[in-house]
């Protein structure tokens, strides 16, 4: 898993000045920070026990207790197969955050940049996260979806 992450560097989050609920934002920021460090164990710990992940990488949907690990593995395979490297995702300030009791919905603008056959590529996208507050009061990511267009060469 760690190898897959190191290869793809799939989710490196820049420090973002999140507004809205500090605790919700802290979980999202910690998610990005964990990826920055390649710390998949910490990143996984920020998710619920059975998260739902939707990404542009096939098979596009991962659910259940192994969702996070399976997604990471599939992402690593895809990046390797497509000759991508040096990927970096920068997460911006949430463009929307709605909280209702122990549930939250957050939309975060993101930019994915990577190298492919010597070309720098860029994909401006959005991540949509659903979070739940657990019994200890900690916000956990129950779901996230990557919504982005085809990457384009950076000129």
């Amino acid at each position, binding site marked *: 898993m760690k190898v897959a992450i190191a290869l793809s560097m799939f989710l490196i989050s820049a420090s973002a000045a999140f507004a809205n609920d500090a605790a919700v934002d802290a979980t999202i920021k910690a998610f990005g920070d964990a990826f920055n460090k390649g710390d998949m164990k910490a990143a996984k710990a920020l998710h619920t026990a059975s998260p*739902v992940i*939707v990404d542009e990488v096939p098979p596009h949907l991962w*659910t259940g207790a192994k969702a996070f690990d399976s997604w990471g593995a599939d992402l690593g395979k895809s990046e390797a197969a497509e000759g991508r490297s040096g990927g970096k995702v920068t997460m911006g300030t949430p463009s929307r955050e709605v909280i209702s009791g122990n549930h939250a919905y957050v939309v975060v603008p993101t930019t994915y940049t990577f190298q492919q056959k010597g070309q720098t590529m860029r994909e401006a996208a959005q991540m949509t996260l659903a979070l739940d507050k657990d019994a200890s009061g900690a916000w956990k990511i129950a779901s996230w979806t990557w919504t982005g267009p085809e990457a384009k060469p950076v000129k």
Partner: protein
Amino acid sequence: MKSLMLLTGTLLLAFAPIALAGDTGVDAVIRQFADALHAGDLKMAKTFLAKRVAIVDDTAPYYWGGTNAMENWLADRDKETTADGVSDGDAELGEPTREKVSGNHAYVIVPATYTYKQKGMAMRQPAQLTYFLNKGAAGWKIAGWTWTGPEPAAVH
């Protein structure tokens, strides 16, 4: 019937006809699903879904999963729109901005605009729907979708 009443009462997702491009099988399922919802035929709509689906929307609790995800999503939508004084809801889909098919899996992004009235004020929310589909013995089925949208704004 109860679900049909919920849908009819809130008109929460009435899809306009769309001209989808890309894989015809994938596009057909999305179109047929949208048409069934538009017609209020939830029984038909559900035939285009996988047995278990995942739905993410900007209505609390924001995520629904499992065999009754669609019904639970609709029920929660109805509660919220009623509580918020929302009426005349309608959602129009555009043409897909991205469609990625990998074997028996598909990922499709469709722009959508949700319009409604709230306490007499016309509201509008441009958003994106991210669909994910799986292909099995019965063909393409929608495994779920995510609504990605900003705060709705008043129409001036």
